[in-house]
């Protein structure tokens, strides 16, 4: 099976159905190993046991950006190559990315509470992730606003790419805004370089979460293809009615 064959949604469905159980199993095993390793990791001399939150916070934060990258690639696929699977991939990724971004924010907030004494600090990094979350929600709203997915796809692709270009600008502005105001009590996270004892569980967890995303994304893409098939058949059914 070459890459070209994958352009065919039916082939894609066959491949996905064969691949998904294996991927899900592998993800599960890796998650178990990662969780065990995180549980066994020693406490940080500064942050104590709260460092354990890092093992789930960082993978989610990493995915929140990675998923936008995936969607940007898919957006290019939609706009430049008009690849039939590109808009399916972009649409399926958005809710999953939003969930990971939400988890990054929530776990960050739960980590910040013992460290800063507050659930939320308008720190540059947190604020940028919050804006990223809002952009995910906006993208989902855009997908949901239009009934015809191929029409929504182009609009969403433009928005995704504009977002990808804008994200560094937003990050820069927020940084500037933040230094201008010099918040009093920010203890920056991840200051000390990571010890091997933390690095290995973190890497395993990051890999496990990436695989989790891959699994969920393939499954969601399969749903999306089926949804479009339902739509096409319903349109056909309507044309056959008197």
């Amino acid at each position, binding site marked *: 099976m070459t890459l070209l064959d994958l352009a065919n949604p039916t082939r894609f469905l066959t491949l996905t159905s064969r691949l998904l159980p294996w991927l899900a199993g592998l993800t599960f095993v890796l998650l178990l190993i990662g969780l065990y390793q995180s549980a066994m990791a020693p406490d940080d001399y500064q942050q104590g046991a709260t460092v354990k939150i890092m093992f789930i916070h960082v993978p989610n934060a990493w995915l929140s950006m990675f998923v936008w990258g995936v969607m940007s690639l898919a957006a290019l696929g939609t706009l430049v190559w008009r690849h039939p699977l590109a808009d399916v991939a972009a649409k399926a990724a958005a809710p999953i990315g939003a969930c990971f971004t939400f988890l990054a924010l929530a776990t960050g907030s*739960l980590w910040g509470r013992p460290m800063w004494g507050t659930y939320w600090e308008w720190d540059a990094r947190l604020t940028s992730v919050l804006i990223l979350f809002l952009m995910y929600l906006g993208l989902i709203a855009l997908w949901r606003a239009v009934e015809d997915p191929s029409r929504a796809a182009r609009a969403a692709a433009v928005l995704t790419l504009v977002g990808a270009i804008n994200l560094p600008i937003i990050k820069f502005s927020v940084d500037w805004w933040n230094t201008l105001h010099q918040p009093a009590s920010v203890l920056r996270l991840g200051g000390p370089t990571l010890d091997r004892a933390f690095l290995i569980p973190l890497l395993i967890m990051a890999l496990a979460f990436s695989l*989790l995303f891959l699994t969920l994304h393939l499954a969601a893409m399969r749903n999306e293809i089926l949804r479009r098939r339902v739509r096409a058949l319903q349109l056909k059914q309507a044309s056959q009615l008197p």
Partner: protein
Amino acid sequence: MTALSLGPYAPFIVSSYLLVTVVVAILIAWITIDYRRQKQRLRELDAAGVVRRSGRSATEFK
């Protein structure tokens, strides 16, 4: 579980792990339910005698 002494901040650690579990579980449940629903609709359309352009049944993958 003696190895897992989480110290004074245990509630925060536990709730963040729980939150991730819950959200991922919701995501998985949503995707699974969505899959079943689409398959169900395809079966209904198949039963109504609507066939794809290629003449294959709606529920078939290949």
